[in-house]
Structure formats: C-alpha cells, structure tokens
C-alpha cells in the first residue's frame, strides 16, 4: 500500500525476506493512518541493519551513532515537543551499546517511542550474538555458543515503571500496526520490542519459529497491573505473548519543563540582549 511516507530514490539495502521490511511497511501505514505529515515526524536511529530504516521513510532523519539514538531523540523532543519523535534501531544498538540510555530515558519519561527491531543477533556485523540471543546461540565470535542469558527488555522496562511496554512481531503487519498505533498515541515513553526474523544470520528464531509461538495478550490481561505485566514478560519459550504488556501514564518530561520554554528570551534581538546583559552583569557587582 502506498503511503505518504514512502521514500523515493533510496535503495533498500536489506536482504530479501528480512523481517525489517514488514516493520517498515507497518510503520509507514501507521503514520499515514494516524494522519501525521512527514515533516512533523523525526526518526532517530543508531547503526545496524535496523538503523537504516529511517532512510527508507519519507520523514526527518537523524541517523546517529551505534547505541546512541535515545539521547538524541530525547533532546529533539525536549526542544521541539510539537514533533513526533521515534527512536528506531536494532537490539544490539538499543540493548547492547545503548543499554544505559534506555534505562535512564525510562526515568525521564520523554514522550518518545522506541522501536527495537529485535532479531536476536548483530546483523550488520555478520551474525554475532546480541544481548537478546538465546543461550547457546553459535556464531563465529561465539563458536562455543552464547554463554550469557538473554536480556529481557520487557521485564527491564516494566521493572522501572516505563510508560508503555509492548512486544510485536514483524510477521504480522496488522497486529504490529495496532501496537504501533497504541505506542505512538501514548503520551510518554513507549518501548516496542519487535520480533524480527533475520533470514541471513539467525537460523534459530525464524518466521516459523516465531509463528509457532506467538499469541496476543487477551482482554484478561490488565496492562495497568505492574505485577501481572512483569509476570507476562517472563513468558518466553513455547509461548511468546505479544501486545501491550504494561501501561503506566505519568507526566512527561516535556510537560515538566513546559513552563521554561515560555520564558525563553530572544537574545538575538539587541534590546532584549542589553536588558539581559544589564540584569546579569549587576549580579557580579
């Protein structure tokens, strides 16, 4: 389906069949259906296969450093709260190199949405274990199999009382769109971990593997219940729940500093500049 957000003249560098395509399409359609204009959207990314996604969207793009999309997104939103700000990258980028920023962004609760293309592997660097790779996952860098337990991003975010915490699957566009809509509409920090098959480097977590396991959280799940959300987030194996696990509305960072923007003074204007100068110099006399 064509959308307002289709990029032109940009060649997509992903492998055919990659789960990233599904995410890209779902995001374009969601933005369109929510009525955004491209110029009102900024997508910030890091480095990796997933991190190329913003280039394939017709939006404002800041494709920064590996692991560092969240601080950039935070600041863009702080300065321009009227824009829709999305941070989008891979599991290595967001949970590995960038883990500390995720942790602390949750505490600030900026009104940004973090989309993680979680293929449980480092794609762009050719297949090393990522923070979410299963124990025993083999690669050239881990021929003995991954020795670490996988990071659980949902449990992590829920444990810190994040605004909205969800999991989606790249292989189900409509389901993914529904979750993206909830996340983008949410006022506050929203994390969407998107299960994304990597057809080249992850022979374990394939489309089929996910399809056999995923199911959507039902009506009986209460996303306002932190304990229930936590419990659900631990479920991973034969059954993998999708949907909004947790929802914890709270004042956003931008609301808290809103008052300040109104006091901003135009120092590019000589008279105002002189006024401030005199006020300030007087402090040092």
């Amino acid at each position, binding site marked *: 389906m064509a959308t307002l957000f289709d990029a032109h003249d940009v060649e997509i560098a992903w492998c055919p069949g990659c789960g990233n395509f599904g995410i890209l399409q779902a995001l374009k359609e969601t933005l369109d259906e929510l009525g955004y204009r491209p110029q009102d959207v900024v997508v910030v990314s890091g480095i990796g296969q997933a991190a190329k996604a913003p280039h394939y969207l017709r939006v*404002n793009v*800041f494709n920064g*450093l590996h692991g560092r999309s969240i601080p950039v997104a935070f*600041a863009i939103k702080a*300065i*321009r709260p009227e824009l829709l700000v999305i941070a989008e990258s891979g599991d290595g980028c967001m949970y590995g190199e960038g883990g500390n920023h995720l942790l*602390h962004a949750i505490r600030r609760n900026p009104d940004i949405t973090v989309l993680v293309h979680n293929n449980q592997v480092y794609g762009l660097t050719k297949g090393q274990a990522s923070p979410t790779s299963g124990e025993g996952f083999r690669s050239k860098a881990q021929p003995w199999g991954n020795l670490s337990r996988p990071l659980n991003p949902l449990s992590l975010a829920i444990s810190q009382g994040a605004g909205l915490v969800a999991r989606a699957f790249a292989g189900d566009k409509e389901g993914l769109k529904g979750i993206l809509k909830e996340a983008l509409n949410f006022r506050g920090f929203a994390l969407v971990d998107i299960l994304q098959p990597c057809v080249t480097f992850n022979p374990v977590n394939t489309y089929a593997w996910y399809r056999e396991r995923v199911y959507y959280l039902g009506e009986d799940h209460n996303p306002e219940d932190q304990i229930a959300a936590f419990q659900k987030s631990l479920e991973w194996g034969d059954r993998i729940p999708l949907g909004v696990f947790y929802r914890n509305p709270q004042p956003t960072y931008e609301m808290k500093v809103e008052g300040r923007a109104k006091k*901003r003074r135009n120092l590019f204007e000589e008279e105002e500049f002189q006024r401030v100068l005199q006020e300030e110099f007087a402090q040092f006399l």
Partner: protein
Amino acid sequence: MVDVTLKVGGAAGQGVQTVSEVLSLILARHGYYVFSIEDYQSRIRGGHTFTLLRVAEQWVSGGKGALDILVCLDEATYHLHRGEVKEGGVILGKTGNEAPGEDVRLLPLDFEGVALRLGNRVFANMVATGAVLAILGIGLEEAREYVRETFARKGPEIVAKNEEALEEGTRLVEASGLSSSPFLGGHQNPSRVSRRYLISGNEALGLGALLAGCTFYSAYPMTPSTGILNFLASRAEAYGLIVEQAEDEIAAINMAIGASYAGARAMTGTSGGGFCLMCEGLGLAAMTETPIVVIDAQRPGPSTGLPTRTAQGDLLFVLHASHDEFPRFVFAPRDPQEALNTVIRAFNLAEKYQVPAIILSDQYLADTRWSYDRLSCEERPIRPSLSWDGASPYRRYALTPDGISPRLFPGGEALVVADSDEHDERGHLTEDLALRKAMQEKRMRKLEVMRKEMRLPFVLEGKDATLIGWGSTWGVLLEVRKALGQKGKSIGVVHFSDLYPLPEGLRDFLKRFPNPVVVEQNFSGQLATLLEQETLLPFPKRICRYDGLPFLVEELVEQVAEVL
C-alpha cells in the same frame, strides 16, 4: 601602592571558601581589585583547603606566594603555611607551637569559640571575616549590608547574630592593637561608583552561554566543570533553558547534538575523562555538520588524576580527538572577561561553519575570581541566515564552494536528513566513493575559511625575552612581565586564545619575537610542540609546571630569570 596577599586555610567543610568569598565581595565593593585562587582536595570534609586572595589598588591578574596575612581556621593551616608569611605579616586564628618567621605577628584567635558563645559554630566564618577586615582596616559597613542581603530570608535574628559575629571579630583585633596600622592603610571607598565586578571563570563561561542564546545544556557532573552546570541550572527557570544532567558524558554530547539538530543552541561541558567519552560524539557532530560547543575544563591526568587541581594537558588531545579528520575550533580564553566573549564567539562560529567548537578551560580559570572595573560583552549572538530558496529540492549537504551547506531544522517544509555514515547531498547514506571524496573535501574546505576567523595572539613587546602562553596563564604572564620590568628586564608576552585552526602567517609573525620561552601547565610543552609543527621554528625553551598547582608570580619570575 597597596597590594596585600592573604591566605585563608582550613579543613574542607570549615568554610574557607565562604570566608574568602565574603571577603572578596566586600573588598570589591570597597573598590579594591581582588584576585582569588581556590585550592581544594577531592573530598568533602577534612584534609586541607585554602584560598589565596590578593587585594590591591591596581588591577591584578595573578596570585603571589608570599603572604601578608594568614588566616588559620585550623592548626594544620598554621603548620603548613606559616613559612610563607613574609616580614611584617600577621597570622591569625588557630596557631601552633612552632615559631612563625621573623617579624611576623601572631594573633591566636578562637573563631569557633567566639561563635559558640554567640550560640552556633556557623558564625565562626563571620568572626573570622570581621577579624580580617579589621586587620585590613576596612569598616564593617559593606559587610553588614552583605549580611543583611544574604541572611534576610533566614530572619532578623540570624542577621543580627551574623552582624554580632563580624563585630566580635573586629573587636578582637582592635583589642590586640593590630588594627592600628591596617594593611590597606585605611582607604575607604568614597562612593559606589568604583565597586569592582567580581567573576570566576565558570560563572563567565555560563554567562557567556546564556548571552549566546544557549537553550540547551547537558552535562554529567565533573570537577572542575560542574560550576558551569550549576550556573546554567540557576538561570534555567528564569530564562527558559533546558539544563539536563545526563546519565553519562556520551549521553550528554549526543543530547547536545540532538538539541542542535532540532534548532537549539546547545552546549556540553566536562573535564578530560568525560571528554574522552565524548570523542565519538564529537565526530558525529562533525559528520552531520551539527554545531555544538564543548567545554573541556582541564585537570591533571592521566585518568582520574587530580580531580581538583589545574592543568593544561589536553591541548593536543582535543586538537586531534575522534578518528579521521574534520574541522573544529579550539579556543582557550585567558580570563573570565574573555571567556564570556569566547563562548558567544564559539556559538556563532560553530553555527556559521556547522562544526564543533571546543573551549579549553582548566581548574584555575574555572575557580579563580577576577575583579574588573567593568565587564564588557563585545560579541553578539548571531544566527546565520538559512540560504535555501524553498523551491528546489532541499539538499542539506549541498556541495558548495566554501563547504557550508544550507542548514534547516526539522518541522519546517523541507525534510532534514542527517547521517553519521558518509552520505549524499540529501544526507542519505552512500557508498559512492567519488561522492565520499567530494564530501570529505567539502568538510575540510571549511578549515581554510575558518582560519580567517582566527585571531593572532595577544602581544606585548619585550626585548630580552618573550613569554609565550595560552589560556589561563595570561594573567600571571602579565604579572611576571611587570615584575621583571621592575628589575630592568624587558619581557614580551605572546598569548594564544585562538588555538585551532591557527591563524595564517604565524611563522612570520612569531619570527620577530626575541628569545621565546613557552610557559605551560603540562609536562612536555604542548603549545610549543604545536607551534613547531605549524611554523617549523624551534621552541626549545619551555617552562612546564605539572604538579597541579597554578603558576604564582614570584616562582615564575625566578624560573624565567633562570632561562634568560
């Protein structure tokens, strides 16, 4: 001509800085020129800390080592510093058993005891202040006013107690007869007109950012840069800045870059260890051509080093920081007055050329208070006008003759694309290697235009030798020149505040100065090395201090005399 040096020493937590701050302020309001240097350890209580305060009728720009007055808030101060008091000097406060130097008067005073009699140990600082003012020969008028201003919100009782404490201090000195020939000769400020401005480097850097129209400051606390964070935080609510304490320095610089991309004037500040963590971000700013200002307040290293001491050891590091090559500005302001202007210049130039601008401060500049007749602000915040016609497709990284491309902010009509990868004119990542070459040339092209913005060093001529320095040592170089001038030596000073890119024609410029001696607060003489590289002229004479302490006048005079 009055020129008094006094030292207030004690354990951390005893209020050394309060006493010296109050004294400085009162003396400046009295029309004296004041120069105060802070010395402290990386701890919160105990240990030893002091302030070196110079009070004079003429403008001063450096500290002296020989003391007229030593104020001991604890006995350790007496032991450590009594040898520094010169003939005719006075030691007051907690004294010890050892004899002071010859012709040094002792005034054992129990500030804390007096304070406790007044009801609380906290009044000790005001007792000491009162005592020192008496020895200097300054009436309590200004001090009372200060007390009233400062403690008003704590209620009239506290004001009264503090005033009493001042009076007690003065009385004790009067009782001892020591106030009969006061150090400042009884000079009094006849009117308010001649009050002096008093400002530290950190305050000036913060103020400069405020005046530059900075709307976003992100930082992770790190001595000696934290004062900038505190200053900007103190103004954030009144002026509408966003001041954010980041989770680490990596976040701090990436936040500043994000804010700048979004349209803010953004800055971050740190010290060497934090700057290390910002190297990658510096390259990101360069590649995305996003202007930011970064302050590196230097302290001795390597590594954690001496967190509260001073150094100029990061020059060559910041010059080359981050992998591969890109243009950047590096400034090192010489004093708070210049710092104020430098920050505004840095913001303007960073934005004009869409590059990172680095300001090198150090603990000495950061914490030292200078006094001035007037403060001036010669720079104005200027935003470059955006040169996009709105019609043709917008190309953020258009290949232009001077390398500067039209910079828009997101949220307008055109989409703004930035990428840390090599990219095409639109900002999208590319593997076209001819384009890569063109892009690297475009970025580097700016350097030659940037060079034209750079100012030649500050110069005072001299026949016998030329002291070459940079950054915060300027003031002490002036003092050394003066001191050696009095001894019949003609000493020049060439001082760099603009460090990179170095201005054109430097070789010919530098050739004309006789007998150059480079003076730096680092081990190897980094400016000297840089000048050698830039000019191919040798600068073998180097005076380097790297123990963490700033140069003081007398010692440096001797060192310079030695190499003459």
